[in-house]
């Protein structure tokens, strides 16, 4: 397995008959993902993009042995959808849905934790392992298989950066878009050990944002346990304090959460800092060359 997904990943799409569910089912299939089932209550028996639709995840798992879920269900029903997936035995759920109340996410996260189920997201691009499988919505065009791991709190900025890597001939092992909501199922701290353990990843590009302390926590994890090189970029250095930038939720508290705090923590942990997205490919290439990998 490459970090979280590989060719054995069998995806059920919850909310497959919705517009985004349908569009991204097609995109996942084009990427090469094994999308085995979809669910929409009341629409069981139909097919979407050649994928059989079931009324419940339980049925989908029974009939297709799905082992990962991609959730497009609208925010008010997302909590229920995730619990349904867990109860049906799913242990990896990518939640694409945005605007899920964080109170719901708290109960989802802790329910999942009790049952051993991992959430990626919500409001996230998801997971893509080029040449293997994609669970989520990252555009297919940006990828190429390789040995660079990418982990990010952002959406489109991730696409931008992965696309830049590709243009410079730098392929990716796995790209993880964690989402930037106040409560995420998988944080940098949770994701880094997966890349550390992945024999197919040589270097990790970490893409952060101002707000919260996920990057500071990541720095601590890198310092303590992470042995591979890290190139980090933190967006929002020049954002005005006190204003929220979309869903970045720049709540800056006691000196933590600022770009300065994040950059100095990451630097202190041994990460190389890119000042702009377009600097990343060269830095990665140089570092890989030093490792003798390129």
């Amino acid at each position: 397995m490459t970090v979280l997904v590989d060719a054995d990943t069998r995806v059920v799409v919850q909310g497959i008959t919705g517009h985004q569910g349908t569009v991204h089912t097609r995109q996942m299939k084009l990427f090469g993902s094994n999308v085995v089932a979809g669910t929409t209550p009341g629409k069981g028996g139909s097919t979407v993009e050649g994928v059989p639709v079931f009324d419940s995840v339980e049925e989908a798992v029974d009939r297709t042995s799905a082992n990962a879920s991609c959730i497009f269900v609208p925010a008010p029903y997302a909590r229920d959808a995730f619990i349904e997936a867990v109860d049906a035995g799913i242990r990896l759920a990518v939640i694409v849905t945005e605007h899920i109340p964080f109170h719901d996410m708290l109960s989802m996260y802790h329910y999942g934790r009790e049952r051993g189920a991992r959430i990626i997201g919500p409001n996230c691009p998801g997971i893509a392992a080029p040449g293997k499988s994609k669970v989520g919505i990252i555009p297919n065009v940006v990828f190429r298989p390789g040995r660079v791991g990418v982990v990010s709190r952002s959406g489109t900025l991730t696409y931008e950066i992965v696309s830049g890597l590709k243009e410079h001939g730098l392929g990716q092992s796995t790209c993880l878009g964690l989402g930037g909501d106040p409560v995420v199922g998988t944080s940098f701290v949770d994701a880094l050990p997966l890349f550390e353990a992945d024999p197919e990843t040589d270097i990790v590009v970490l893409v952060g944002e101002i707000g919260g302390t996920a990057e500071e926590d990541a720095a601590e994890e890198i310092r303590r346990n992470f042995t591979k090189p890290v190139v980090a970029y933190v967006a929002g250095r020049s954002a005005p304090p006190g204003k929220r930038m979309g869903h970045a939720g720049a709540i800056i508290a006691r000196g933590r959460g600022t770009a300065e705090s994040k950059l100095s923590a990451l630097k202190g942990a041994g990460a190389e800092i890119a000042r702009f997205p377009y600097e990343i490919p060269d830095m990665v290439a140089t570092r890989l060359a030093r490792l003798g990998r390129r």
Partner: protein
Amino acid sequence: MVKLAEWRGKEIFQKYGIPTPNGRVVRSAPEAGALLRNGGVPLPCVIKAQVLAGGRGKGGAVRFASAPEEAEAAASAILGLEFQGEKVRELLIEPKLALAKELYLSITLDRSRRLPVLIASSQGGVEIEAVAESALVRLPLHPFVGLVGYEKRKVVRALGLSGGPAKALDGLVDRLWAAFESEDAELVEINPLAVVGDGLVALDAKVIIEDDATFRHPQYAEIRDDRTPLEEIAREKGIAFVQLDGNIGVIANGAGLTMATLDVLAEFGGRPGIFLDLGGTDDPAKVTEAFLLMAKARPSAVFLNIFGGVTRCDTVAKGLVEAMKQVPPSERFPLVARIRGNNEAEGTAILREAGIPSVPDLKESVQAAVRAADGAAPGGGRP
């Protein structure tokens, strides 16, 4: 995020059984005088401006009065004030209580732990940011079990309480927790929480409700936030829109890309004036609306930076072309566009046809935008 005025926060506290002073809201000085003359609030009283901005106390917008006339005068003085652009339109009048002690108590979210956290301090009545970390207690609370005995005992110790107030705290934290949970709050803060006689009273209330949860609480969706009028219109249209001091308008999709764009603009000497995050959309009409909104803010130039994912490049291009037709001549602006990602070829073709080149390189496109803004009349449109 829906920030509630003090009096609304106190209404919520009352709903959950958290003691507050028995106050009333007035909207004019005569109304204040009449209220006090009728004994609606006993004297002496306190008159507090109901604004979301901080610094009320220092700004003279919290005053005491011991006679109706005095209160009327205070009310008319406060109603004229303005805080960070926010005019005082409402006053909360409450009886003045005899306090023995001012404490701090709040519940908010700890993102790293994915747990709500209760924060308590014996140093209440000041900005919590100004209180030393050593004078705070932070308790992560599990959403499935709430506050348990040992946690309450820790809070009592941290607040230095005993006797009646210690006993009162036991129920009060449960009620604050219930309010945080049931109202989908991001923050419930009591500062100060006052020891009054043998009990505790919430002298102030700061409650922030989560935007995303308003589907469960439609009553909060109606409440205005601390947004500018254009920001308010954008919010209604589901567009993230932030007004700043510069002259370049930035339209991007996704918070991360928007901020990265800003970082690059700043590097090349650009001064961003408006951020507009399209978010995820595949409706060209929404893109058109966003552009028209941007035009109303009169930027010197606009830089469009889109990486197509859920929002496809051709959708954006279509919306943009349509907007350019609708923008009145007086509001026109120079435009630099960069569109990449899903359906990039289609989008680029649509723009080219409309005479708008897409500059694929980020650095180059930003430099072009900065040049365009510098060349334009400040705050004005292209003739």
